[in-house]
């Protein structure tokens, strides 16, 4: 009985009670004092909840949120800058190596034809020779310059990032 009246009143409060349900509720309320008490209590709750007010957000919420958005945006853009510097660095090294290898022309005396049992050790010797030729030729100047330049730029960027991070920590 109690469950039925609760269900009917909840539906009534949600505006979901059909005409037959309204009649049933009316009959229950007329015949039973406890049911009427239930409705009055529900109405009291409903009335109170409708008068509930919002809590105010803490003062300064909007500027704080906007500051965080601006900071996050800045951090994101410096992230892109960092990625760009790294990409530039890697591309530079790859390009330097490519140019150096392309410019390498082994002389006749450098070719060691070996088709005997020790071909494995000669193969290793040949590869070592290629590398030593790359880094002992004029191309090493090009590679050295590019790498040094890129290291200076990267070093400067890392230093700046670290300094900004420290300043940010101090400002907290």
């Amino acid at each position, binding site marked *: 009985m109690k469950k039925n009246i609760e269900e009917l009143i909840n539906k009534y409060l949600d505006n979901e009670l059909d005409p037959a349900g309204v009649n049933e509720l009316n009959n229950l309320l007329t015949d039973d004092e406890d049911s009427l008490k239930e409705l009055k*209590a*529900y*109405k009291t709750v409903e009335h*109170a909840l409708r008068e509930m007010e919002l809590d105010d*957000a803490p003062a300064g919420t909007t500027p704080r949120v*906007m500051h965080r*958005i601006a900071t996050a945006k800045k951090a994101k853009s410096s992230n892109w800058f960092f990625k760009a510097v790294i990409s530039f660095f890697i591309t530079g090294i790859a390009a330097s190596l490519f140019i150096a290898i392309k410019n390498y022309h082994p002389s006749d005396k450098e070719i060691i034809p070996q088709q005997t049992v020790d071909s494995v050790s000669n193969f290793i010797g040949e590869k070592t020779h290629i590398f030593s030729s790359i880094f002992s030729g004029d191309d090493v100047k090009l590679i050295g310059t590019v790498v040094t330049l890129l290291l200076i730029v990267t070093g400067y960027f890392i230093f700046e990032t670290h300094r900004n991070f420290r300043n940010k920590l101090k400002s907290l």
Partner: protein
Amino acid sequence: MKNLSDIEIIESVKRGNQADFALLVDRYSGKAFSMLKRLLKNQMDAEEALQDSFLKAYQSIASFKGESKFSTWFYRIVYNTALTILSAKKRKTEKEMVSIDEEFEIETFDNEIYAKSDNVNKYLFGMVDRLPPRYALIIILYYIDDMSLNEISQILGLSLVNAKVMLHRSRTALKDLVIKHNLQEELT
């Protein structure tokens, strides 16, 4: 400028007018804060979660297509942010949020809050704060925010039926307290 609709503000923010997002913050910070206070039961956590929620909303505003109301979309972010904080802190509350069959423990606080309250409204507001988080949240969204049960079910990731059951349970629990203290008003 303040009369702009949510959609107009969002379009403006999408066009790059970052400052216009402040209008949405002004508009929704009170409602979101009320939700978060009930969910997290802690002022400082609620403040932190409020800022996090707005930041997340800003960062993903490009993905808002206007298929639902901004408030529904944003409150879902607020709710998920609160859940993340709760699960990170592994509070008891987290356990309470798992099932809709969770136990009401409001009787425990009843005498204390009743003694402190000088009128029925104040008493019932105090008891709403003692409802399990999701139940309290449903009350806030339904009565303060005037949201439909359909929207509430979307925000909380519940079925419509479950949202309705939870609203009825909250209402009935409060009604039982009103009867217990004989606070019911005469019908007008």
